[in-house]
């Protein structure tokens, strides 16, 4: 039984479909990153999961229990918001204590004045305080408990928000771009921390982000969502090396994958000397050839490969990105090279562009991946080449 499973969720706002039959399973202890460009429906999905919004159709099960009639507060789902959403009038400690107070204290015990003289509430309050301290120690914010959100930095607020979500030991953990308000250095550091916290707590986590690097580096499995459709759910290596859809291939990877139009004829795809045998039947016509920039080689002598010219060179330290224009078709092909490979290259010079055919992927006219005889084994190989 999955910790969380979504079955065919649909949602539209005023005729605009935001979610198209999204189905997803999160296994116990798993970290799933839901990634996609802004406006692809990932935040809507998260809000529906949390019970803050309702799907038009579809089902949600948490631990096998149907959640459709369960209110947000009773789902035992915790969420970290992009804006942190800390209560501005409460200190960090009080913020973290809120979910515990709501859960453990009765309605009358929570009342001001009256509540503080009722029997039994004192022990509960001490327990809450102890748990808050414990959580704060784990997140290294115990020195901040008396500060209000306004007096804290972005990184500190983000930890308080994490603490507030984790303190009640939720059955599911949702995070809505929790790192996007942090500066770049802190973000990379916080990635590692969240993964570490997840490993320690073991709570199944659904992590929404628009940053594909974040998704690939943190998650056990990555769900790529584009235009309200869940296009692929797979481990990061498979998402990168073996994308199921052209949009997934385009969205994941930096610099972007090269997409070149090619022709499918009688079960073969051909492009300027590359011939790939298709394993499935496709009507003759236009298809797309995808090849990652690291599988494009340049030959300065121009003796091998397709004739082309370097438009632009970007030096990125550990690598050099070359933008080349093919003479024959005018297509731009991006090559990612090691610095020593790029030593003799200068912008404007003619080069031979070598596309490694065994690394090329073929996508059908509607974007679906078409299996080819040579690309099939790419799945088993490691991500680096």
């Amino acid at each position, binding site marked *: 039984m999955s910790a969380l499973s979504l079955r065919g969720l649909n949602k539209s706002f005023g005729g605009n479909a935001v979610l198209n039959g999204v189905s997803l399973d999160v296994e116990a202890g798993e970290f799933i990153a839901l990634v996609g460009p802004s406006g692809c429906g990932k935040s809507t999905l998260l*809000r529906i999961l*949390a*019970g*803050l919004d309702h799907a038009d159709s579809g089902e949600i099960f948490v631990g096998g229990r149907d959640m459709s009639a369960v209110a*947000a*507060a009773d789902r035992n*789902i*915790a*969420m970290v*918001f*992009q*804006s*942190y*959403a*800390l*209560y*501005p*009038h409460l200190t960090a400690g009080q913020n973290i204590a*809120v*979910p515990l107070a*709501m*859960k453990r204290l009765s309605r009358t015990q929570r009342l001001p004045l009256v509540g503080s003289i009722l029997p039994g509430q004192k022990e509960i309050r001490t327990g809450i305080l102890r748990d808050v301290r414990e959580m704060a120690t784990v997140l290294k914010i115990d020195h901040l408990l008396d500060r209000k*959100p*306004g007096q804290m930095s972005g990184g500190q607020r983000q930890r308080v928000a994490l603490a*507030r979500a984790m303190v009640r030991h939720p059955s599911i953990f949702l995070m809505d771009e929790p790192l996007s308000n942090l500066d770049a250095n802190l973000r990379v550091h916080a990635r590692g921390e969240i993964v570490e916290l997840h490993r320690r707590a073991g709570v199944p986590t659904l992590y929404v982000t628009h940053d594909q690097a974040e998704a690939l580096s943190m998650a056990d499995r990555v769900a790529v969502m584009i235009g309200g459709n869940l296009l692929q759910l797979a481990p990061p290596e498979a998402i990168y090396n073996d994308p199921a859809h052209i949009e997934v291939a385009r969205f994941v990877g930096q610099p972007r994958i090269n997409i070149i139009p090619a022709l499918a004829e009688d079960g073969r795809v051909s492009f300027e000397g590359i011939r790939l045998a298709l394993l499935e039947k496709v009507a003759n016509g236009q298809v797309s050839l995808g090849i990652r920039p690291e599988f494009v080689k340049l030959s300065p002598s121009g003796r091998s490969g397709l004739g082309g010219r370097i438009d632009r060179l970007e030096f990125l330290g550990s690598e050099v990105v070359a933008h080349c224009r093919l003479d024959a078709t005018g297509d731009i092909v991006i090559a990612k090279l090691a610095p020593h490979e790029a030593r003799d290259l200068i912008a404007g010079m003619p080069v031979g562009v070598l596309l490694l055919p065994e690394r090329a992927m073929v996508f059908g006219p509607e974007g679906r991946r078409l299996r080819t005889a040579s690309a099939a084994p790419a799945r088993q190989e490691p991500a680096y080449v």
Partner: protein
Amino acid sequence: MTSIPAGRIIRFALLSLGALMILAPYIFMISTAGKTQSDIFTSSLSLIPEHFYFAENFAKALSKVPMATLLWNGVLVCGMIFFFQVLVAIPCAYAMAKLKFRAARLMMVLVMLGLLVPIHATALPLYVAFDRMSLLNSYTSLVAPFTISVFAIFMFLQFFRAMPDDLIHAARLDGMSELGIVARVIVPNAWPAVTAFAIFSVVAHWNDLYWPLIVVSKQAYATPPLGLMYFRAAEAGDDYGALMAATLIITLPLVVAFLFAQKRFVEGITMTGLKG
């Protein structure tokens, strides 16, 4: 030595002139409160009283009308009106700003319509209704018509719209009911709006003469402005010195309150958003 730029001098002069024009009646009132009846009715206009008559006028103001009762009534009525206005307007504005329901649009139209209708238009039907219920000459009749303030709803609505949705979502996930959210999240963060509204409400109702004049005829329920009417003794002519002294006394609470909380008031009026 630094020279003050001419533009600044002109600006300062204009502002001073404006302030003087606004303050002139008040200054004249202070002056009159210190004059004898004969001083007041001389043809010459002097700001400094010839004989200082402050003590006598204030003594008369305090003895001729039950000043303590008037002030207490004023505090009670304004306090109750303000309390009920906030009690009604905050949940209402919260629902309209943050909850999705079908009647929201209709309610917005009603609020706008409500803003357009002055109390004078509804005064007569209200008077008849209170009369039938035998509620004239009571605190209820003074307070009840103002407990639902569309102005308050409108003002809080604007303020709550600026509050982040995520804050309310977080509260729901933390296990709060909608009323819990209002009490624990909205109200503690709405103080700037409440303070700003308090100025409008208290000033308006402390100074209101129109409505108390309609529903109250007994001195026991008179509010301060109504109390001033009792200085108009038909046979002896109006005692302006004492009247001005009494007016000074009843405007004093507002003036003092403003001077003390000036900074907060200005903050409250200019504050439109909430920073998390």
